[in-house]
């Protein structure tokens, strides 16, 4: 009975308030809309995370194996019969520096003429059945061709090793690596396999003896690109090239961009002219990057006569590309800083510059950093404009300065992706992507750390 009365009271109240009734009628619909929106948002996030995870998984699974590479650990006898060179010249024995240098050059030439391939072949033969000696070329083909020069460099460093037996670690040929990793279909007919049947048999023997192992491929990180010896192709040149460009982009685009943003946001009067600048900056951010490449080729190379393929030019082009990003990010950060802070400073008699320098900028640093890092990260991953200024050239040297010819990480990825030794370079391309991503991630980490440091929210 008591509940009955309560019900009637509520019912009466409802009847008395048509507003309540109407609102209640809409409630279910509103709640449904809210649930729907939340679900859509959640699924978008899950989809995004899923795709990123898939991307990372596929790159890691393909690229990580490339960091371990088929390597031969050989006992190499530096046969004085083959390495038949005069003793290394001693600087003390010469009257002048010039004379010594000449003698040293002669000695180097002698070393270069030496058949190092035969030294390595003999070392390999020690592990192989005697009949292998008959097909010497095939035996030599087991080891990456670059290793001859490594051995030579070793002996040049320490000529005392001639006549000794040393333990030498060298990369196996790229095809061996692919074969060992099982990335070649073994059921293919003989003439389509990159390795002869002898070589395949020898590989098994070397594997059994523990001479052929998978070792960490430091060459991938510390070698430059190589065509003659794909197994020892590395990223060092591209990495340093990218680093130079990154430095140039940071050094140029951050100060210029921040200064431009501060001027536009804090000092410039609002008029047609500044409106025009604003529109242009926004448009510039939307210009396809390849257009900046064309501009760079026309202005920096044809006009200013800067060298082709140089990180300096690449850095300048990427700076042009990054500037709008930095300016836009900085401006929106400045706009988000409460005007009351500026009023307080100006009310105390601070000049505009003082107001900005003492109060606005310190608060804006975290946002500016974020914008700058996003811009630099974008620039770091850019390929198209670099192709147009000649940074896709094959460069077998680590650039010593931003004026030297060089390539960049993303361009190196592009070049390797197109290499005819597909089986081998597929993994290496992914490995290069991993290095690029690692660089970007560390850049982001630095940004976050800096941000946390400056973000002293009071």
């Amino acid at each position, binding site marked *: 009975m008591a509940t009955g009365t309560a019900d009637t009271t509520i019912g009466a109240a409802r009847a008395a308030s048509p507003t309540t009734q109407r609102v209640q009628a809409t409630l279910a619909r509103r709640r449904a809309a809210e649930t729907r929106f939340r679900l859509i948002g959640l699924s978008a996030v899950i989809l995004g995370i899923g795709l990123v995870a898939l991307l990372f998984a596929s790159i890691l699974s393909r690229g990580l194996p490339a960091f371990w590479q088929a390597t031969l650990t050989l006992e190499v006898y530096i046969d004085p019969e083959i390495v038949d060179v005069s003793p290394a010249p001693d600087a003390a024995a010469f009257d002048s520096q010039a004379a010594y240098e000449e003698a040293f050059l002669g000695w180097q030439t002698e070393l270069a003429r030496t058949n190092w391939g035969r030294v390595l072949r003999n070392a390999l033969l020690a592990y192989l059945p005697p009949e292998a000696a008959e097909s010497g070329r095939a035996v030599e083909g087991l080891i990456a061709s670059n290793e001859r020069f490594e051995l030579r460099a070793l002996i040049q460093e320490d000529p005392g090793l001639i006549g000794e037996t040393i333990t030498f670690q060298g990369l196996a040929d790229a095809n061996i690596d692919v074969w060992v990793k099982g990335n070649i279909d073994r059921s293919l007919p003989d003439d389509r396999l990159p390795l002869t049947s002898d070589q395949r048999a020898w590989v098994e023997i070397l594997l059994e003896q523990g001479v052929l192992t998978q070792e960490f491929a430091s060459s991938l990180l510390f070698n430059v690109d190589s065509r003659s010896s794909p197994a020892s192709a590395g990223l060092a040149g591209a990495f340093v090239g990218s680093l130079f460009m990154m430095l140039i982009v940071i050094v140029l685009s951050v100060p210029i961009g921040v200064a431009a943003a501060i001027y536009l946001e804090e000092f410039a*009067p*609002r008029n047609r002219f500044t409106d025009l600048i604003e529109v242009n900056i926004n448009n510039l951010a939307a210009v396809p990057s390849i257009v900046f490449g064309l501009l760079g080729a026309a202005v920096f190379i044809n006009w200013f006569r800067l060298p082709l393929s140089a990180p300096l030019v690449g850095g300048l082009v990427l700076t042009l590309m990054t500037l709008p990003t930095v300016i836009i990010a900085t401006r929106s950060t400045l706009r988000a800083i*409460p005007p*009351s*802070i*500026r*009023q*307080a*400073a*100006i*009310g*105390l*008699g*601070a*000049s505009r510059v*003082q107001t900005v320098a*003492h*109060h606005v900028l310190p*608060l804006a640093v975290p946002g500016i950093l974020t914008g700058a890092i996003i811009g630099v990260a974008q620039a770091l991953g850019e390929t198209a404009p670099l192709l147009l200024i000649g940074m896709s050239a094959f460069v077998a040297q680590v650039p010593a300065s931003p004026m030297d010819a060089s390539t960049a990480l993303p361009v190196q990825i592009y070049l390797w992706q197109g290499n005819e030794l597909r089986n081998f370079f597929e993994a290496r391309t992914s490995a290069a992507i991993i290095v690029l991503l690692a660089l970007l991630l560390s850049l982001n980490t630095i940004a976050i750390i800096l941000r946390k440091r400056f973000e*002293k*929210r*009071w």
Partner: protein
Amino acid sequence: MSAQAEPKQPPSSPVETGTAMTDLTKPVVAADGAGAPSAQPHGANRVEPKVTTTDVKVFYGSSEALHGIQTEIPANQVTALIGPSGCGKSTFLRCLNRMNDTIEGARVTGKILMDGEDIYDKSLDVVLLRARVGMVFQKPNPFPKSIFENIAYGPRIHGLAKSKGELADIVERSLKRAGLWDEVKDRLKEPGTGLSGGQQQRLCIARAIAVSPEVILMDEPCSALDPIATARIEELIDELRRNYTIVIVTHSMQQAARVSQKTCFFHLGDLVEEGDTDQIFTNPRDKRTQDYITGRFG
């Protein structure tokens, strides 16, 4: 220089010497005018004007927000500006330290004299003016820095302290004068934004005082505060009046009546009526003033 850092005048000296010099012939009357009989009903407030405005108009773009304001701000008194929202009180206040200069499209015409000197004169440095005319805003706006830094900033940029010790003295004195010292003396290194609203506003007042201004402008300084914090600020204003000329915008009639000696009533960009606070509140001459203070509109 150090003299500038000193508080203006001891309370015993009746009027500022600066203004008295300009017009020695006028009789000097004590600011509180206690017991000074006068034939005029508002005689108690016949004090040297600190600021005189003549036909001040302010335009925002093409719209005129103030239509020729003519008034005097008496020295060492509290002048209250009252009136309904949007009538131009803040606009007028901003004319006095040229904060309108920072507003895009704002234009000020007419004459504003401070101690007989045109503050809109080309040769006058606006930075110097703002050091002489401090401002306290509606919403407390301490810098996101330490309490010490908040107070020290003004003296530092104006070079008012020669040494660290002197700067610390200025900070201490300013905080004491703003009645905040006892509450914050042990936490000067803590952020100013961590204080309560009332404390923050007193911090802002202390910050304004630290550069030893002659005039302090306050734009509804208590509107964001609770009644207790408001009462503290009102007390403070009453004390500060001895050393500073104060102009305060307020929406509270009671507050105007409590703290001010002179009241100006603004309406739709016009200065409708001005006079002794007592007179305005007890015996307004204009119908609109009457309606406003009796709460018929606002």
